[in-house]
């Protein structure tokens, strides 16, 4: 396992801005946010986004339960998080304002559709009086604009019902924000043209609303914002969410291995989109099946792997629990299998749309008996692509199930994305069984130097064999109740996973020096926030480094060596110390946990405060 000591780069300071759109689920704030983000990327910025959807069921229009929000941070340097607080908050109705005002920085800009603050809407949001009426200028600069009226007026000539016309309000808002940040009008108009090609009315309405918004911003001399400019950061060609990147990564892995990709899934928030994406890829050879439940889904994936494909199943916490028994079988059979867990807040049904990292336990230890499984975690939306390839690579090359952890925040957040070159990625070697020379007997549980058995796919003449979940004799795979053999097989299964560590170049990444006062440890989706906070602290001259764990299992001894080089070690995770526990047990270092269980990623300031506290303690 190699340790990469990353040299802190110049590109980590600069200008960045956070914009947050909020409104009713029907107001199109997700579309507005995504579009704005996209043009920021095209302008050469780095971005990080965070969408917040209402809880599962559609709440009544105008209610606080129905509020949807989208936050994006963009900048001319590396942007690691979606930002703690918004510089600009766009609120489409009172319910959105009341639930989102706390996200606006003191002294920021609040753009609100004053036309949406009617009596009924105010009451629905729980306001007695209109909060815009005597808005405290110290709290924020209020930019009130009657989008409703202006849009209705601009669209007066179209043959549209009021309700439909009002659906273009988000484009008015975009017009305002585009003007503020000097984003190109032409690109937007082109895109509207393509996106709404099917309906003349809608296309023209959105175009008109957007232009009206821009014009209004210009005429009212709305202050233009200090505009982040693209710097050395290579921005992407587009943005990508974690679930999409993960899906593409699985497909890329199949291509790199020259194997079929078979996906068995049962829908569950926030993993369902992986099923949706892959169901669309039938023309590209993907077989995606919606199973009757999670147990069937992993069963199908395992059956597919047995049949010579890369079997994949994707789920979230409750589904992960259901897959435990079959995952144990996969360990015993030693077949490749990728189990994706897009973590959400638990226990039980918990908060299905919210992010958490509390499935490390179940991924590492949630099986009966000794059933070791490699576990890898993606660290950012775009990284889901690479993490998926890594998971599939280890699964296939080492004939083992692998758990790939993502989370609700990574799943839906977006990052810039440029087309990866598959030629730059090492192909995945498939340990196919071959009939041994000289008429010798092929043994299903004979192993190579890395303790990997070979894969005899049904259909291959001459290699017929039987495998199963009962303990098997080392080598032949026959059923065995022999105690010494069980001891040996347990040991083999353990070492087989342990040796994978020797080849994981990406397992540990240290940012900063290899010793110092404080080591911040992250894994999975806490990467960005921790990196940002460590950057900040280093700029203030603190001797803080950052260790990111890509693999939760196997863990290399060098992690202990690194940790021992610091006065203090702080493990930041969205749980109560699950990976912390492993680090302490393994390396006997007195690492401490920085735990948060609020259903959302860490904020930059929270981490900064924790770092300062740890340094002063």
């Amino acid at each position: 396992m190699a340790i990469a000591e990353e040299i802190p780069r110049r590109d980590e300071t600069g200008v960045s801005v956070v914009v947050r759109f909020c409104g009713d689920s029907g107001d199109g704030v997700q579309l507005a946010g995504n579009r704005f983000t996209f043009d920021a990327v095209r302008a050469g910025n780095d971005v990080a986004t965070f969408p917040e959807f209402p809880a599962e069921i559609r709440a009544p229009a105008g209610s606080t339960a129905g509020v949807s929000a989208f936050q994006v941070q963009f900048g001319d340097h590396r942007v690691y998080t979606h930002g703690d607080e918004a510089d600009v908050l766009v609120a489409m109705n009172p319910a959105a304002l009341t639930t989102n005002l706390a996200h606006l920085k003191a002294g920021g800009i609040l753009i609100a559709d004053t036309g949406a603050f009617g009596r009924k809407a105010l009451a629905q949001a729980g306001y007695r009086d209109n909060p815009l009426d005597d808005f405290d200028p110290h709290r924020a600069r209020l930019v009130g604009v009657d989008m409703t009226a202006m849009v209705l007026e601009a669209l007066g000539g179209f043959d549209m019902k009021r309700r439909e016309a009002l659906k273009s309000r988000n484009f008015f808002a975009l017009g305002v924000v585009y003007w503020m940040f000097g984003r190109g009008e032409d690109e937007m108009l082109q895109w509207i043209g393509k996106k709404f090609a099917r309906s003349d009315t809608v296309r023209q309405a959105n175009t008109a609303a957007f232009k009206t918004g821009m014009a209004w911003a210009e005429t009212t001399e709305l202050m233009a914002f200090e505009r982040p400019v693209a710097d050395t950061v290579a921005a992407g060609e587009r943005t990508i969410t974690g679930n999409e990147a993960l899906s593409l990564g699985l497909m890329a892995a199949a291509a790199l291995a020259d194997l079929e990709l078979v996906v068995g899934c049962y829908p569950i928030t926030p993993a369902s989109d992986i099923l949706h994406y892959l169901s669309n890829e039938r023309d590209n050879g993907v077989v995606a099946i919606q199973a009757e439940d999670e147990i069937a889904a992993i069963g199908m994936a395992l059956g597919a792997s047995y049949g010579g494909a890369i079997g994949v199943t994707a789920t979230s916490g409750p589904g992960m629990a259901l897959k435990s028994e079959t995952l144990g079988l996969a360990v015993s059979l030693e077949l490749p299998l990728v189990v994706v867990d897009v973590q959400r807040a638990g226990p039980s049904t918990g908060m299905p749309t919210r992010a958490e990292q509390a499935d490390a336990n179940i991924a590492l230890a949630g099986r009966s008996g000794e059933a070791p499984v490699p576990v890898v975690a993606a660290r950012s939306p775009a990284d889901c692509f690479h993490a998926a390839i890594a998971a599939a690579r280890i699964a296939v090359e080492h004939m083992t199930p692998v758990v790939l952890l993502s989370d609700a925040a990574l799943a839906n957040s977006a990052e810039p994305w440029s087309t990866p070159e598959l030629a730059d990625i090492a192909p995945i070697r498939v340990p196919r069984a071959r009939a041994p020379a000289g008429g010798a007997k092929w043994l299903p549980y004979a192993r190579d130097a890395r303790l990997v058995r070979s894969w005899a796919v049904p259909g291959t003449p001459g290699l017929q064999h039987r495998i199963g979940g009962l303990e098997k004799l080392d080598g032949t795979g026959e059923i065995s109740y022999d105690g010494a053999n069980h001891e040996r097989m347990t040991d083999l299964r353990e070492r087989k996973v342990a040796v994978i560590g020797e080849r994981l170049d990406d397992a540990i990444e240290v940012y900063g020096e290899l010793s110092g006062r404080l080591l911040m440890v992250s894994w999975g989706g806490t990467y960005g926030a921790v990196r940002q906070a460590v950057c900040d602290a280093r700029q203030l001259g603190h001797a803080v480094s950052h260790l990111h764990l890509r693999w939760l299992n196997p863990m290399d001894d060098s992690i202990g060596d690194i940790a021992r080089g610091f006065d203090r070690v702080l493990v930041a995770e969205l749980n109560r110390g699950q990976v912390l526990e492993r680090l302490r047990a393994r390396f006997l270092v007195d690492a401490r946990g920085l735990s948060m269980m609020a259903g959302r990623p860490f904020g930059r300031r929270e981490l900064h405060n924790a770092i300062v506290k740890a340094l002063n303690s």
Partner: protein
Amino acid sequence: MNNPGTELAATERTLSRKDYQTDNDVRWCPGCGDYAILAQFHKMLAAIGARKEEHVIVSGIGCSSRFPYYVDCYGLHGIHGRAPAIATGLKVANPDLTVWVVTGDGDGLSIGASHLLHALRRNVDIKVLLFNNRIYGLTKGQFSPTSPRGLPTRSSPAGNTDDPVRPLDFAVTAGASFVARAIDTDTTRLQDIFIAAASHRGSVFVEILQNCPIFLDGVFDALRDERGRVDLVDGEPMEFAGKVLGRNERGRLESFDTGHHRALIHDVTDRDTARQLAAIDDSSGLPFPFGILYREERAAQHEAVAGKGRLDIPGMQRRLSASSRVRRQTP
């Protein structure tokens, strides 16, 4: 057995049933009905000239589920109840294989009932052989979903309080496209059904009544008698013991004298009649039907879901580039 050298040579010549046996000691109890079933399975493979590598047996857990260890083809002894799901994945990944599922009344109808239901409904091209001994054998004698009502067992000392599942009824209702019944000792019928099942394209469900001499000896004895059974032959009247099954004026099945105008001619494509036959149970007072009850041609699932083409590196590179070009909106 697994010596690839001799194996390859062997597939060139005609194989006998012995060639399909494995080295494993068969570990069922003396007198277990599973032996007879196994023998017919070996024989069927020889009869159809099966290439060993093209057949796979997937099973769950139970006495019956040890089956794969005794047949020299590919085999996977899975976990309790999940064989239909595993077999589904196997078949879609590798559609050229002939995939058999061996399960028990507990494995298939208790813990695995939902998987079985959905696999049959989707018309997955797998051949499910359910060994129904009306008891849990491997775990030593608890009642199963097919146990007779009132049966005292280790987990129902005062008698089983549940009404039994009718496996054929379950299968027809679920949507199996091939439904049949045989009994362990009826070698001819077992053989015929196995051969027919092997070539059916779609979900096969065969209930095989199997005696467990240890925990429920003789439960099927009445059905070994000609008065207790009607052997269905496509195109022939449903005759048994000098009588015939027919449909009375209320639309119900009833027994009539041979030659009665209400006598039913068996038509394997007649789903409605199959449903009625499948519903015959302990309490119907009618003979149990044996043979192929129902058979239908309908698109098998692996055809419906098959991916087009294979993902290779150039193809995937194109796919990736296209996705960036299109600049799709994330949803």
